């Protein structure tokens, strides 16, 4: 009974964290793009005359989308048209279940992992769910019975499947270095030190894999340098026939994918919740000093470090999204198949050779 309750509380907390961060990310996207372009960005939404840097804008947007007309075109397949946004939302929302937020804590003699479920194939679970998200895109394009939406859906399918391959290949290296698919164990392995002082983070052991993964995961979020499924300037994309909250769900899914990508980058390549040289009882510096900390402070530091890293990678992805122009479709495919996939294979070979030596 208590176990069920704990899991329920964890689900609620994780989803709240996820959705709040999504809302914030829409604000970050607007403000960061503005700052990058020497503008100010949305700052007019106010509550009781307080503007708070436009922090109310996401809520204003949400209210607007709730009250917009939810229109299903008469020629569309009604059931599938309705199902598609929920599918893509669901598959992205469940990935947060496998993300480790911190080391396990002991409360009242009970060991509680700061993770909704510690799956022994957590990495595969996240990859599988991210791949399934393509169903939402394909379905929305198909069910709209609109040739431009269908084109967007097909582009989405082709792009996501081809970049999924590079994504998987770059992660093979990670699995070889940290011999586990359990995300909590991967993070634990990254707490060890290389040569006694360098944290064994994925980015240090797998620099090439990191680059391939970063590009592939950005293609996976289908945002600007890779936003061919949307293709705003020519086909408007798979959600052409959507309005109101259903369109909002597609947009939220986009932002949630950015957060999932940031979580994956953090967990796999930047040590997850690990702080360099922070053990379970405090800091053990490589130059010999130790600084013992109480248990709760260590947990707070770990969760804080995880959040800081995730926010940093969200920031980085938004920055890249506002820097680069969009690929043409053939360039996108050629880049994926002739550079990313071979680089992923090279990364696996290098890792294997280095592991044997």
């Amino acid at each position, binding site marked *: 009974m208590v176990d069920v309750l704990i899991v329920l509380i964890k689900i609620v907390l994780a989803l709240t964290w996820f959705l709040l961060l999504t809302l914030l990310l829409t604000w970050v996207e607007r403000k*960061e793009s*503005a*700052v*990058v*372009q*020497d*503008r*100010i960005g949305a700052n007019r939404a106010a509550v009781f005359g307080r503007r708070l840097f436009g922090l109310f804008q996401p809520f204003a947007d949400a209210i607007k989308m709730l009250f917009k007309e939810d229109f299903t075109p008469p020629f569309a397949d009604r059931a599938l048209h309705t199902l598609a946004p929920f599918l893509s939302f669901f598959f992205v929302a469940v990935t947060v279940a496998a993300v480790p937020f911190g080391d396990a804590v002991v409360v009242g003699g009970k060991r509680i992992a700061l993770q909704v479920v510690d799956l022994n194939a957590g990495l595969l679970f996240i990859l599988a769910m991210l791949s399934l998200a393509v169903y939402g895109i394909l379905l929305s394009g198909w069910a709209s019975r609109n040739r431009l939406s269908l084109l967007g859906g097909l582009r989405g399918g082709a792009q996501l499947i081809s970049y999924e391959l590079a994504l998987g290949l770059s992660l093979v290296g990670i699995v070889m270095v940290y011999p586990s698919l359990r995300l909590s164990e991967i993070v634990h392995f990254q707490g060890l030190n290389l040569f006694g002082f360098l944290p064994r983070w994925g980015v240090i052991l797998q620099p090439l894999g990191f680059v391939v993964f970063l590009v592939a995961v950005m293609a996976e979020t289908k945002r600007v340098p890779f936003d061919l499924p949307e293709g705003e300037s020519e086909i408007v994309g798979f959600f052409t026939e959507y309005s109101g909250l259903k369109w909002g769900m597609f947009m939220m899914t986009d932002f949630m994918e950015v957060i999932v990508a940031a979580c994956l980058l953090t967990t796999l390549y930047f040590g997850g919740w690990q702080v360099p040289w922070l053990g379970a009882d405090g800091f053990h510096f490589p130059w010999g000093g130790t600084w013992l900390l109480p248990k709760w402070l260590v947990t707070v530091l770990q969760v804080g470090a995880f959040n800081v890293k995730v926010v940093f990678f969200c920031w980085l992805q938004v*920055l*890249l999204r*506002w*820097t*680069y122009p969009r690929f043409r479709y053939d360039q996108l495919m050629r880049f994926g198949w002739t*550079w990313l996939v071979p680089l992923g294979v090279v990364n696996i070979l290098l890792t294997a050779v280095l592991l044997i030596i």
Partner: protein
Amino acid sequence: MKILSDAVEIVRGGLITARHFVVNMWFHTWRFLGLRTKRAGAVTIQYPEVRREVAPRHRSLHRLVRRPDGKPRCVACMLCVTVCPSECIFVEAAEDPDPEVQKYPARFTIDLSRCCFCGFCVEACPEDAIRMDTGKLEVAGRARADLEYTVEKLV
């Protein structure tokens, strides 16, 4: 190795936007804390509250210049009506008791929904009775009739 130089350019592009972000945030932060900085963090002018100064020769909403006694200077000579390319000025003359003035506009209406703000009426006026120097830029109405500005609105 074109791919290498391309990769370098890609990274440089990212660094340019990152530099803009850091520099602008630097100025935003100091400004927010109340310090004076050599420039603001953004080039934005917060329009309804802060306005750009219009140039002195800028042609904005019309104004009828008044005599010392408060009446409009216009003598209803119809020159502006004649010169107006959009035919948006309507003047109805009436006799003025003052023999020096002879005529005054009983009705002087500018249909701003037709006005193209060319300023010909200002050029044509022999009495310097109409000017376009109010600096009012927002001329809007909910109906066409709202945009027909009469003497009362124009003085």
